[in-house]
């Protein structure tokens, strides 16, 4: 028996909203399977389970907001199947009273009342969820008005009375004046997702020249169009208020690294090719291990180094905004794996479905604005981290080699670091380590 609890998906997360279960009672799960979708103030995240076994009771209903650490489901690690209708333990912060079926006869007051909450088991709720049925509209034929599995199975799945929508979708709809009942949800059971609201409130996120005009003034409300923007605003304000930043910059000759990468890519199918960003990230991760003074957190007026390197990668989102998910163990991951992980990370970040393991706090973040064509970026540190590495575009520049002027591909690497935790000499060691590592690309 193991508990599946609301995970902490970032240092600043206190609570999360369960958006949907991707498993039901009786389903077999393996460690690492994505079992639920949780929404935080910043984004929607797919949460993996950390145990293998059979899903027992689901203790929290979709749409419920619970604190981090709350038991959300029970996973039976034994081989025996769960009881057909497991009695759920009372949810810690239930939105509405949940009555275990075994107590129904002793609690006659809890029968179904019109418009009130229906009495049902998790299995039945899961079925209803899958079919998109609002249980409060179902007449229970079981004892004490209990809704049985067959009641749900015989209810037509169309026309739910209550609009099913994720909390983020509701918030977006409110701020942009969208009528949820007029929308068609693309989520499970027809649930309206944030993307569905964005699609009608902003039109398709077209990325042609025209759409690069200043963001549409969304009916001049003070509330940001994207709640994620408010989270970013709070974070960077805190960073600039609390962290005394210092900045370093160096230009790195990439002739060797780019020639090595070109050679390597020439003999490989597209799926196995590398991009310069993969080499740069790997060298930053290795450098972070060599300069542990910059890899970790500032906590309680002191620096706490991290034994592992979780490299945050700042990913810009289509339509605006930014997330910095983490590549775990980027320093020990072979380059091809890091490349594959990077591709998956960026695509999941942009589709708004990061995995919980990717939202674990990074120990050092990299922002790569090279693709946007700028030469250098001096960033804002993500608290409680103490450094941020910025990478500009890989560009041809004149360089002196053996007293002769020539032209090589180069990149400008910068460091923004927390002066409370380190001094310039330490920061300089990180940048020179990155340079040194990139001169031996075959060892990355």
């Amino acid at each position, binding site marked *: 028996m193991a508990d599946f609890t609301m995970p902490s998906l970032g240092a600043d997360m206190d609570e999360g909203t369960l958006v949907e279960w991707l498993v039901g009672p009786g389903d077999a799960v393996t460690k690492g399977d994505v079992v639920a979708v949780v929404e935080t103030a910043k984004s929607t995240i797919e949460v993996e389970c950390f145990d293998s076994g059979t899903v027992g009771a689901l203790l929290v209903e979709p749409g419920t907001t619970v604190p981090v650490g709350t038991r959300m489901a029970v996973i039976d690690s034994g081989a025996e199947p769960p009881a057909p209708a497991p009695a759920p333990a009372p949810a810690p912060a239930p939105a509405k009273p949940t009555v275990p079926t075994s107590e129904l006869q002793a609690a006659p007051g809890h029968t179904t009342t019109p418009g009130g909450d229906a009495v049902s088991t998790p299995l039945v709720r899961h079925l209803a969820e899958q079919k998109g049925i609002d249980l409060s509209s179902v007449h229970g034929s079981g004892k004490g008005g209990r809704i049985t599995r067959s009641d749900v199975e015989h209810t037509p799945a169309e026309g739910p009375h209550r609009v099913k929508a994720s909390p983020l979708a509701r918030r977006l709809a409110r701020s942009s004046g969208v009528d949820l009942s007029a929308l068609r949800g693309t989520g499970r059971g027809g649930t309206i997702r944030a993307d569905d609201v964005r699609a009608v409130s902003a039109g398709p996120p077209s990325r042609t020249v025209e759409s690069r005009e200043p963001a549409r003034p969304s009916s001049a409300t003070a509330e940001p169009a994207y709640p994620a923007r408010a989270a970013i605003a709070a974070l960077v304000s805190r960073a600039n208020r609390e962290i005394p930043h210092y900045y370093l910059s160096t230009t790195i000759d990439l002739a060797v690294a780019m020639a090595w990468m070109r050679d390597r890519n020439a003999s490989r199918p*597209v799926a196995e090719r590398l991009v310069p960003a993969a080499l740069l990230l790997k060298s930053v991760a290795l450098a972070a291990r060599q300069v542990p003074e910059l890899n970790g957190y500032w906590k309680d007026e002191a620096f706490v180094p991290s034994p592992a390197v979780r490299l945050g990668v700042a990913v810009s989102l289509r339509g605006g905004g930014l997330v910095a998910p983490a590549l775990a163990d980027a320093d020990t991951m072979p380059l091809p794996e890091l490349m594959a992980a990077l591709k998956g990370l960026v695509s999941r970040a942009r589709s708004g479905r990061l995995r919980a393991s990717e939202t674990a706090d990074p120990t050092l973040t990299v922002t790569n604005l090279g*693709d946007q064509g700028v030469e250098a970026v001096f960033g804002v540190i993500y608290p409680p981290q103490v450094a941020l590495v910025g990478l500009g575009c890989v560009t041809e520049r004149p360089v002196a080699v053996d007293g002769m002027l020539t032209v090589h591909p180069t990149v400008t690497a910068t460091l923004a670091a927390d002066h409370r935790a380190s001094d310039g000499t330490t920061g300089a060691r990180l940048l020179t380590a990155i340079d040194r590592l990139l001169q031996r690309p075959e060892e990355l």
Partner: protein
Amino acid sequence: MNRDEALVLIKDVLTDVVPGADTAALAPDENFRDNLEMDSLDFLNFIEALSERTGLALPESDYPALNTLDGCADYVASRTSVK
């Protein structure tokens, strides 16, 4: 594959890689990497999908020819046999 078929396929791949991309608004000789704000991973995804759909190897040295709709269409049409 003729040039028109190639163009349809290329736009299709672009729309897959860049959700919401308005390929109809792209000028044929315009660098779509810039216009659609594609980063190097987006472009690699495009090359990967194009390679899958056409069966072409698309070596890295040919990437500069694959920045525009015209360039891509010419490249694909000239290298795939007419069926």
